[in-house]
């Protein structure tokens, strides 16, 4: 067992995903199989190998600190499910 149902439930919480009981069962089985497969990487000795987070050798992609036009509030709110007073509206955050 690479991963338990409880761990899958915990990960779902982290990912802000609500899974039904059936989905949880199916997900546990599938994740277990995939995690077993990726253990293959343990065959390799990677001591002293630098990790690659970026395929192209590039550093410090900076730009000049100049102000440029941005999207604007109206356009930014145009696709929102709920908006009010120039803000995105969401369910109450603090009780």
């Amino acid at each position, binding site marked *: 067992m690479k991963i338990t149902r409880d761990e899958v439930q915990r990960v779902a919480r982290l990912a*802000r995903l609500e899974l039904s009981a059936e989905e949880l069962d199916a997900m546990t089985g599938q994740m277990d*199989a995939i995690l077993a497969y990726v253990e293959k990487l343990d065959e390799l000795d990677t001591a002293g190998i630098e990790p690659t987070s970026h*395929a192209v050798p590039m550093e410090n992609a900076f730009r000049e600190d100049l102000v440029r036009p941005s999207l604007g509030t109206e356009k930014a709110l145009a696709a929102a499910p709920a908006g009010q007073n120039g803000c995105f509206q969401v369910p109450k955050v603090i009780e």
Partner: protein
Amino acid sequence: MELIHLSLHELRDKLREGEVTSVELTRAFLDRIEATDHRINAYITLCKEQALLDAAEADRRRALGCDLPLLGVPIALKDIFITEDVKTTCASKILSNYVPPYEGTASRKLKEAGAVLLGKLNMDEFAMGSSNETSAFGAVRNPWNLDCVPGGSSGGSAACMAASQAAATLGTDTGGSIRQPAANCGVVGLKPTYGRVSRYGVIAFASSLDQVGPITRDVEDCALMLQAISGFDPLDSTSVDCPVPDYRAELKGGVRGLKIGLPREYFIEGLDPAVKAAVERAIEVYKGLGAEMIPVSLPHTQYAVATYYLIATAEASANLARYDGVRYGVRSEAGTGLTSMYEKSRAEGFGAEVKRRIMLGTYALSAGYYDAYYLKAQKVRTLIRRDFLEAYKQADLMLAPVAPTAAFRLGEKTDDPLQMYLSDIFTIPVNLAGTCALSLPCGFDEAGLPIGLQLMGRPFGEAQLLQAAWAFEQATDWHKQRPAL
């Protein structure tokens, strides 16, 4: 040949000669879409009225002496490209109502080159898939055999080209999503070197792997499209500031003396015999054209799929965190508070494959597992990239299959996600290495399904890649075949 079956460069010539107008051409493609798309489902959104207006505008400009590289040419875009005021869904329920307020760079560049947008093309949801079966808007069918998949995730783009529903398209490739569907559908697909084309306005799946590329009728068309979209973009901090060559200047230069490497790890047991035979025939064609074949090795190939499914899923879990029902997209009515709103919106809006990948990625990045999974995968990625750079010390290019088989049947691999993942074995390594590669047609199997040949090139070696592809294409006539639709 009917207009719709011609290549982009042939249509361009006709437009320039005044043999056809952009309006006539656009109408021809729109008619074709109407006649065929109910069987293929390549399009999610059709921009009928706007396309005809844009085409008329293109004709007006041409009459005034204007001549842009793609003036009046009707194209279509994978629905992963943000198009201002045109619905963009990424084939997901969660973005089913999303109309972007801005334009992405690749699509803007095509617009500025004069292209006419026919519509947005179907794909696997959030680009996660190899068969275009995970779309919230229904599966796409392979025009060569409607019971088969077109491949994925750019299945709509490849099927559109095979069905002659546009002059050219753009797709994206994260683990093979341009090359594999292009191979399955008998068309040309190119994944440029990472950083060659801007990712601004491309809905992100895995940011260190995603690349934009053309899916076209032939190699010259591919060069034309690549020319239009390439180049440094200050809006994409991962785009590389290096000059864009003229991709058509050396296109017809031939392959005499070119050293083509054959990586032994790509010619293994488990290759479909028809695929093996087609690729071996292609090798003979290249020898006949004067290329020298040399054996090479990419020793860490067998670790690529595992590496990819840790890195890509980890990056995806971060990139898809933004779909929370707050600023755009679908929000669940059933939320009982903020967290509940997030959880239910995402549960209702995402499909099973997307959820699976988010879960895997979240796990791989979580405390206690980060070192064993994500960090380990990044180190193996270094080894994989080194394999490629080493190989390019001996060979100019490499040649290999695109996939172990031709297109499989709809539903054949949907029960076993791991089986589906393993079919990406030959395309994934190039994404991990960040280098370029293309797929072009090289034959058919006994069932009449297309087989693709993969050519892999040096970092920023697209010109040489296209040159080698063009030579093979002109020595064969696979690119002239069309499915009977």
